[in-house]
């Protein structure tokens, strides 16, 4: 897959019409993340029922990859528990390692992003939403 295919066929749809975009009126957890390299900003809000993520919203000022990654993550985490999605977050990080060749089945959703991992400076763009998610999970634990 070349960059044009990845962006045009897989990522631009998410970047142009991000899923679960916006704010929640009464979030149970919220976190923001910032990429000091480019100034991109992201806010994540979660509504929980017990440990299950019932609703989520992201608000992103960022590049195509950052917005698309947040959009894909928001679809992925809905109706899953915080503990589950934190394991996925670690798996996502693992998939982005330079020397990781195979990716787990559950990470297939994120293949278009992962396929751009050789652009190491874009890893932070891909991770920004997940960093906010981990922040939310930490708040939940404490």
């Amino acid at each position, binding site marked *: 897959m070349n960059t044009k295919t990845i962006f045009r066929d897989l990522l631009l749809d998410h970047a142009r019409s991000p899923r679960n975009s916006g704010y929640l009126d009464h979030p149970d957890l919220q976190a923001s993340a910032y990429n000091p390299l480019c*100034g991109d900003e992201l806010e994540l809000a979660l509504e929980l029922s017990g440990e299950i993520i019932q609703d989520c919203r992201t608000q992103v000022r960022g590049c195509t990859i950052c917005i698309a990654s947040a959009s894909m993550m928001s679809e992925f985490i809905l109706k899953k528990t915080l503990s589950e999605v934190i394991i996925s977050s670690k798996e996502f990080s693992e998939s982005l390692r330079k020397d990781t060749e195979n990716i787990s089945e559950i990470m297939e959703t994120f293949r278009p992003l992962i396929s751009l991992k050789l*652009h190491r400076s*874009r890893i932070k763009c891909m991770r920004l939403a997940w960093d906010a998610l981990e922040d939310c999970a930490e708040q939940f634990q404490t």
Partner: protein
Amino acid sequence: MKNHSLASKVCDDFPILKREIYGFPLAYLDNAATTQKPQCVIDSLLRFYEKYNSNVSRGVYTLAEEATEIYESGRESVAKFISAQSSRNIVFTRGTTESINLVASSWAQHKLKTGDRILVTEMEHHSNLVPWQLIAQETGAELVYCPIHLKAGSNGVGLLELEELEVLITDSVKLLAVTAVSNVLGTINPIAKIVEIAHNRGVPVMVDAAQAVARMQIDVTSWDCDFLAFSGHKVYGPTGIGVLYAKKDRLDEMLPSQGGGGMVSQVGRQASTWADAPQKFEAGTPPVAEVSGLVTALEYVLEVGMPQIQKHEKELTNYTLIKFRDFADLELYGPMKITDRIGVLSFNLQNVHPHDVAQVLDEGGIAVRAGHHCTQILHKQLGVLASVRISFGIYNDVSEIDRLFSALDRAREIFLD
């Protein structure tokens, strides 16, 4: 084959330019971040470790004497390069940032008090803002910002508002910190004139010459600035070496900020006396190999010739400015007049994030910077989060600019309908 005379003359001197990126010859357009190194600079680092390595100013044997000679004659070369009064005015540091921090901690910290002001400009790099913020927080002083003309279409867009600068230099201003050249807008600031304005009010001036050093003749004596900082790596030299120039009176006012070997005269159990400047500010084993590399880089620049470098950069910048006019979707920041600027050009492609642009350019072998370029204050003033920046070096030529514009077409194809 490079088709520009200077580029074709020098490009073989830079081994890294033989690299291919994604199958394309490297077009390195990020010279404002760091410049590439000619073979002679790389050789000079090697030669030091192969033939002269030893500590300086400490040993009474041939190697130590030779290393000391390399280091101290390096100070003289630097002094000459920037027309300083004497090598005693040259302090070696790790880079521009450390030089500015040295002035902040060794001079400003004990000179400033509550109510005092440090005058900076909205176009400063973080390295000429944050050290002053730290000192301001410690001393109770505050930072005041000289604005920039930013209105599109107005005359002198991207230039400092000098009338405003005159208004802002009040009695409470104890230091003016200003860059000689903007690392984003490419603006050349009239340093001699700014220093004159400041000195008329008795205000010392610190000049950030990080971007100027490889692009114009620096003359600290005619500029009359009190402090000036630059880095070796931005003038085709190695990383880890920088310079602080300070007038003798200012050096005398500075207190040491780091203690250790080499900066002392006599050490007692409770207190010590200091070596004279510049050694007073160079605690520990200094970067001798790096000084050797820096001197070689400065000699290389002199050999290529500053007038030739400036002519070459003007040609590339002019060519690019004219190209920019053809595209309504490219927003260029900074002066449009060639006499007001150097070959550092920041822009945005409408509706495409700079990171996305830079990735597509990289896949065409074109290295540019994308982000806020350590100027968050300036980018806020510009009303954007980030921008794409191209910046020329002596080895760039017009074919690389043509490649850049073709790659921008590809970015349009990918990201825009």
